[in-house]
């Protein structure tokens, strides 16, 4: 989904090179207005103007002709005795300019990369988050098509063979690590209008967006010195574009849920500065067979049920929700596995593992997923 704002951070860093400047207030100001609007030199980049038929495995690889792009993995896993873990591993590519940089140094590049890693240890009541930032030079970060590989320094997603799946995810730091293999999946779904996901009224205010909604996952999680075998489901989002967002947006709330009846749901609400919901909000719903359909902005009703104030940033996030899809007769109550799932990185945002309980056509249903709260 539209996590373009994170890539803004890369621009933000490039624009001010000071962490202190990226205070909560500033990050709220960073998106859209300055960087992703039409004015700030999108010259030379390709734009998302028409729907697209995705070609795999080619489209798993990077599209450097667009300004921003990401590979976004989130998942809910279980270890021994149903110990729950949530993880997030993302790779962002950001082009600093459209054409390639010239020079004899191997460090010359027009591409910068950022990766975020977060691990939620629900029973241990612990949340870990870290990041990596590097340029696409001397092999520090980048994307490789065959076999597929995307990496930033020591964090990576690497396909085992010529096929995209199975793929290995490796990331972490001294305190927490993950080493997972995503084995199989439902086929990818094209979000929005045949893969073109409009996010604003302007020309090119859109992204190419596909998701792999249920990736069977096995592997290891290590917290401190204790290593545990885990299994569960991962969700992968792939998105790229140039001037994706319109400049009147303040943030968004993004939901992905994998339900016990083998269905999935994704919905994002784009918030205007005045608090209203953008008509360009939307999502997708996937049935047990893998067929899917888009959800329009008004197809989903969202009600915040509970808020949490971060002791670190003093920001208040709506962390519990009621999500209703009247057409599906689906009602879900969503709450986080842990309250503290705020990533205190170059940019602060809340993104965490959630559990969902509710009914579909009056039948009980439950599941897990991820919630991203941006621009608070």
């Amino acid at each position, binding site marked *: 989904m539209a996590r373009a704002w994170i890539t803004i951070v890369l621009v933000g860093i490039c*624009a001010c090179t000071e962490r202190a400047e990226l205070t909560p207030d500033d990050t709220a100001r960073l998106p859209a207005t300055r960087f992703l609007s039409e004015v700030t030199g999108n010259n030379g980049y390709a734009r998302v103007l028409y729907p697209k038929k995705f070609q795999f495995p080619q489209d798993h690889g990077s599209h450097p002709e667009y300004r921003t792009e990401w590979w976004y993995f989130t998942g809910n896993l279980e270890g021994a005795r149903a110990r729950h873990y949530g993880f997030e591993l993302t790779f962002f590519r950001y082009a600093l300019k459209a054409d390639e940089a010239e*020079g004899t140094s191997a*460090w*010359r590049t027009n591409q910068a990369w950022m990766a975020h890693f977060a691990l939620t240890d629900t029973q241990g009541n612990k949340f870990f988050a870290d990041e990596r930032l*590097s*340029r696409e030079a001397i092999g520090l970060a980048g994307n490789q098509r065959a076999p597929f590989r995307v990496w930033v*320094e*020591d964090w990576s997603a690497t396909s085992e063979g010529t096929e995209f799946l199975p793929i290995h995810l490796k990331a972490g730091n001294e305190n927490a690590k993950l080493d997972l293999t995503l084995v199989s999946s439902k086929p990818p779904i094209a979000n929005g209008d045949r893969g073109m996901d409009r996010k604003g009224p302007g020309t090119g205010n859109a992204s190419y967006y596909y998701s792999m909604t249920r990736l069977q996952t096995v592997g290891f999680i290590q917290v401190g010195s204790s290593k545990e075998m885990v299994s569960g489901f991962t969700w992968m989002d792939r998105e790229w574009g140039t001037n994706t967002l319109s400049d009147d947006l303040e943030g968004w709330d993004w939901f992905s849920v994998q339900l016990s009846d083998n269905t999935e749901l994704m919905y994002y609400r784009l918030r205007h500065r005045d608090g209203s919901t953008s008509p360009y909000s939307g999502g997708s719903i996937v049935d047990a067979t893998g067929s899917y359909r888009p959800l329009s902005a008004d197809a989903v009703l969202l009600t915040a049920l509970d808020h949490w104030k971060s002791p670190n940033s003093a920001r208040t996030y709506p962390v519990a929700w009621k999500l209703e899809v009247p057409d599906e007769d689906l009602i879900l109550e969503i709450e986080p596995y842990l309250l503290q799932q705020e990533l205190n990185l170059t940019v602060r945002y809340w993104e965490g593992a959630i559990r969902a309980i509710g009914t579909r056509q009056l039948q009980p249903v439950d599941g897990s997923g991820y919630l991203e709260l941006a621009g608070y």
Partner: protein
Amino acid sequence: MNNLLSTAAQRFYFRHPWQLILAIMGIALGVAVYVGVSLANDSARRAFEWSSQLVLGRTTHQLVNAGGMLPESIYYDLLTRGVIPNAAPIIDEELRLASQPGRRFTLLGVDPLKETLFRSTIRPIPGESASPTALMLKPASVIVPESLANELKLENGSALNVIVKGRTARVRVVGTLKDIGLDPNGSSGLILADISTSQELLNLEGFISRIDLVLTPTEVENLQLLKPAGTTLLTATSGNAAFNELSRAFRINLTALSLLALMVGVFLIYATMSFSIVQRRPTIGVLRALGVQRHELLLNVLREAAVLGLIATLAGLALGHQLGQGLVELVLRTLGDLYFGSYVTAISPAISIYWKGALLGLGATLLAALAPAMTAANTIPAVAMSRAALERSAKEKSFFAALLALPTITIASMILLLGPENLIIAFVGLFFVLVTGALLTPLATVGLMKFAEPFVEKLFGISGSLAVRGVTSSLSRTGVAMAALTVAIATVIGVGIMIASFRVSLVNWLDDTLIADLYLQSDVQVEERGPFTEARLLAIQDLPSVEGLSLSRLRRLQTPDGELNLRAISPGPNGWGLSFVTGNAEEAISMLESQQGVLVSEPFAFRRAVTKGDLLNLPTPNGIQAFSILGVIRDYYTDGGSVTISLDAYRHYWEDNGLTGVGIYFATPAPNRSIQPAVQSIMGSGTRFRLLSNGTIKTRSLIIFDRTFQITEVLRILASLVAFLGILNALTSLQLERAREIATLRALGASPRQVSALGFVQTGLLGLAAGLIAIPLGIALAALLVFVINERSFGWSMDFVIQAKPILLGVALAVTAALLAGLYPAARAGRLNIIAHLREE
């Protein structure tokens, strides 16, 4: 009644406007000196912190290659293997402006994406098109210090011709960097470039200078195990430890001087307040007789002090602010000369200094007023109106003060002899010595006057005798001012002797060590022979009247304990030119020649706490090598500490044939003029080197030395000024108060000239007494500065040379100050209206 009291005070000052002005000036100056010096000091400290923050940021460690540059693949390996997550590649190299090759900058090649983690204070001011993005993308783009941009009128997109690695290159400015103050690498500033630009400018593709790291203890352990062979992991702060230590020592020295000024200032305030009370004793006596309560008097005097203190403190703050502006330039320049060889920029100081200054001014005024206020409140009306009672008690007080000197000197000795070897403690001891001197001043004055009376009487007759006795009898009002003057003059003498001693030691050392006639110095850091090729050296050697050459290689060596200067020498025909502090010179030199060890400089020995016989571990390309320390030598150049080794040993262990300097020795004293062009032509015009004569180096060294101590001079002058005001205040009040006495003299037939002369002789005597008492105190102070403070601050020892000049200067200053101060009161005494003053009774 309160109204009456404050009216009385107001009337007093109204009738004595000079007294009011002097009181306010005295307090104001005391506050001003303290605030001014503190501001300058704080500003310098911040400049230091700012710059080291700027260069190091959050860096905890640095990975370097003992042999030179690091292949960039090492960075790639460590990061992609996950050994060290928080790492930044750095290339640093000297850069000069093509237009002004004398100015050195550091070209710092960074990865802007990594800088957020490291140097958060590097904060380019983004212009329209200036950003680190441009830095990363545009070849040859740099970010320059704001001051340089202003100076050279550089805008975004401006081209700038620079010299790097001896080659000229054209770079393009894409932004400015908020000014950085000091750069511990010794340059005039940082010029920031992307790592790619640095590689391209320096032809260093594939290499970086070092890796900056932010490491946890576990990561340090991991890295120690996993780091590639040949690399060394340094603690980032250790390279700067010596630097921090030095700047701290310098700042403590300055603070001590400012506190001294404050001490003199408090003396002055005390003197001022007690005067105005002493002078009004008759009035107070009358008031008491009229039934004014003690506490009313006490409160009233304190209120008066508060009002005076407030006005004066405000004036002092304003004055101090101005003073600070001037001083900070001096302080920073001194720091620049001492440690950086560069100009440094001021940084606005903390507001809290003004508050402290205000508190000190008001507090000191009230405290200083308390004793006189108590005296006023406690006097019995009849006694208060009598003069004799007052002077009698003053004499007793001078004995009492002298008795108090006993415990203070005991404390001082105990602190200095038994206390820990700590700079601040040493200063505390020094202050106690000064306090002792101040306490002894009144009694010493009485003694001196007794001794002087017959001589003065012979010289000036009866008025001389009157003057001498006048000095003793007026001690109640002059005692404190005298003490203040004495302390100030002692400081002038003491610091003067210290500087003179230092200068003499420096000159001796320069004579001992600069034994070649001409020096060739390489302008660039060279790995190979640089400009000093074998052929050129042979050609120089073959010049007529050249007897021989000495060769040297100076390089910075990164060690786990910090950076050090390694100096490898191959001596010329006149020997090694070393000045030994510890160790047998002949024995040590023969060992040095047979490659059996190293010599260390005095500051190095001091800072690392090593001495002759110890082993010193130095990193060589083939691992750590232990060298035995053969002796400690004097070295005033590299205050960070240096290690001297024979060139043969250096070449053996470091496998480096590079040379950075050549000394040329003449067979007979040959005229420089004919040889210099010959050497120039042998060296060629394309290479970068400097040719300096022995004399030029000496002169330059002394110029820098004198500039370094300019700030100290300024503070000495300020201290004298405060003391001058004190004595002026005291004498004016004294003369004003003695109006009736003078009127009596006039009525008895003394001419106005005689009366003026009396005043003059008296003030002259006061000044002379202060000057004479200040001599032993000053010498003691100098000894403390030379043997304790300087050694503990910088690790430099020096010869103690008592020269007549600073002493005579001090005494002359005291007498001049006193005579100048006596000018107005004496003139006034001559013009006195006799009748009016006699009628008072």
